[in-house]
């Protein structure tokens, strides 16, 4: 029976981020959520299991407080979860995340058919983890996927690109990175959430991973973006139009 691996990230829910009067981001009372497109990955894995049989393993790399995220993932149809947890995993860059995911999948999942990732995370949106993961595992990767089907021994996917839609196939095992259009993630019911707590979770500490590097990614500062708005009204007679052109020049819009 096929084994589907859905990778997800537990990220700050942007709805809770506040901006301080000094223009900085206040993260002191934020909530967390499963990264938006990773919900699509979990949903697609659950749907594949529902149509093709098999099982879904949800895999995440995160801080030890992300246990709620693990339950959330398990309430969305995954059968078990593997959770690499360490306080330092909150600030990993894409290569670090992909390295850990690759090791976890290689050593703890073993045999798998399809790995599903969101196209990018809701916080950093590097769009690198899925592709790096495929490279580290030495298997094909299909990105920008908006539709996918499993056929005998291969995955057939529609990629939405800037200039059109490309239909490609890859032999299994493979990695796919998904666009949000691929499905509408379910809202777990009460029983789904309650049963999630009874599903198996394997937690792996940093010391159990053969990790090479110290974090290479450091946050130096975090500040809110600002959008300056100004409103000035002009009439339509000649003098006003001259003033209008002058104002545009002054702001460097016209040269």
């Amino acid at each position: 029976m096929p084994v589907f691996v859905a990778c997800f990230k537990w990220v700050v829910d942007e709805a809770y981020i506040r901006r301080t009067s000094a223009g900085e981001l206040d993260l002191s009372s934020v909530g967390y959520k499963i990264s938006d497109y990773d919900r699509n990955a979990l949903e697609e894995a659950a749907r594949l299991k529902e149509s093709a049989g098999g099982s879904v393993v949800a895999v995440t790399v995160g801080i030890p407080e992300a246990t709620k995220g693990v339950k959330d993932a398990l309430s969305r149809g995954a059968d078990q979860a593997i959770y690499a947890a360490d306080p330092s995993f909150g600030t990993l860059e894409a290569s670090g995340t992909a390295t850990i995911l690759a090791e976890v999948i290689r050593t703890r999942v073993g045999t798998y058919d399809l790995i599903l990732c969101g196209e990018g995370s809701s916080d950093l949106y590097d769009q690198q983890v899925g592709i790096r993961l495929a490279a580290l595992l030495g298997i094909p990767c299909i990105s920008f996927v908006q539709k996918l089907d499993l056929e005998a021994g291969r995955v057939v996917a529609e990629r939405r690109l800037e200039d059109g839609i490309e239909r490609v196939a890859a032999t299994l095992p493979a990695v796919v990175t998904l666009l949000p259009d691929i499905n509408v993630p379910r809202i777990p019911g009460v029983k789904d959430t309650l049963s999630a707590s009874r599903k198996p979770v394997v937690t792996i500490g940093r010391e159990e991973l053969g990790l090479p590097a110290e974090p290479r990614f450091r946050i130096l500062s975090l500040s809110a973006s600002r959008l300056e708005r100004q409103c000035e009204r002009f009439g339509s007679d000649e003098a006003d139009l001259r003033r209008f052109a002058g104002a545009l020049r002054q702001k460097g819009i016209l040269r």
Partner: protein
Amino acid sequence: MDFRLTEEQELIRKNIREFAEKYVDPIAAEIDENSRHPAELFQKLAEGDWMGIPIPQEYGGAGADYLTHTLVVEELSRSCSSTGFTVSIHVGIACMLVNLFGTEEQKKTFLVPMARGEHLGAFVLTEPGAGTDVMAATTTAVADGNDFVINGTKTFTSNGPTGDTYMVFAWTDKAAGRKGLSAFIIPRGTVGMKAGEHFNKMGLRSSQTSEMVFKDCRVPKANLLGKEGNGLAMAMTGFDHGRVGIAAQSVGILQAALDESVRYGKERVQFGTPIARHQAISWMIADMATDLAAARYLTYAAACLKDLKQPFSKEASMAKLFAAEAAMKHTIKAVQIHGGYGYCKGAKVERLMRDAKITEIYEGTSEAQRMVISGNVLR
């Protein structure tokens, strides 16, 4: 004491909020305007196991605790008070009464479809001449062979026109006083039971309310709920559970009033600054947020006592009294903050203010809550 929800409760709350934003918010104004029962919404609620949360799984429920049910009523009411209330009375009173007092057979027949959300429950107690004064009821149930024959008229029955399973209270022995009232489970379609026209109400408009007329309505003795003569005690137990739900409904209304007031207060500019920067408005918002927190903690505390199997009657009344009066007081303020725009149809605060009023009236008026509370305190 750590004032924290469990991870499961937090996730369930997040999920019902997402559900409410996706399925309830878009229709809330329409079902209010048209006084329409959204059957399609209740089918979706049933699919997500939201219609029987504290009922054991073997009887069709989700098998979670009462606090979880309370959180769900709150979040639904934040989007639509009628929807939150319909879930509240269905689960908190109708399902709970059968769960607490029903026989195994009654649970299999009536509770399972109710807790799955396939059948909607109703609580049929109030009469035209018997509101807070329950003992003034006149509906009778007379034993006749293997049946009881029920005659009388009930009113203000929530889910009356749309219900499937009715918990009906009638005198089996009027002379026995407080030990003379009994309760019956009567399924929709029973000959002699008829729901009247849906009342055209000020608020809570999509919740369907009607008279229920019983004319020689024959009910098998097997449908007697609990012991004969125990009806009043069961009704009071039902109210204890239901009042936690009404408190949660009021908290949901109050949260929505705060959400709207904060949003509008930051947007609306007068005298060159957003009105939320004017002390007159910011203090209203401070009072609203403070009463919301107090109402919420009273409500959760009552639900937690229920889950701990401790007495919670007084606490349920306190939560309901405080939350309902706070909801009324602050929805009026929320309309004030919105000014003329808040007085017009289309502003959510206008609906919130109309919906808030009923929380001070049904499942025991604020005056009745004060009777319960003082009775407990002065005992």
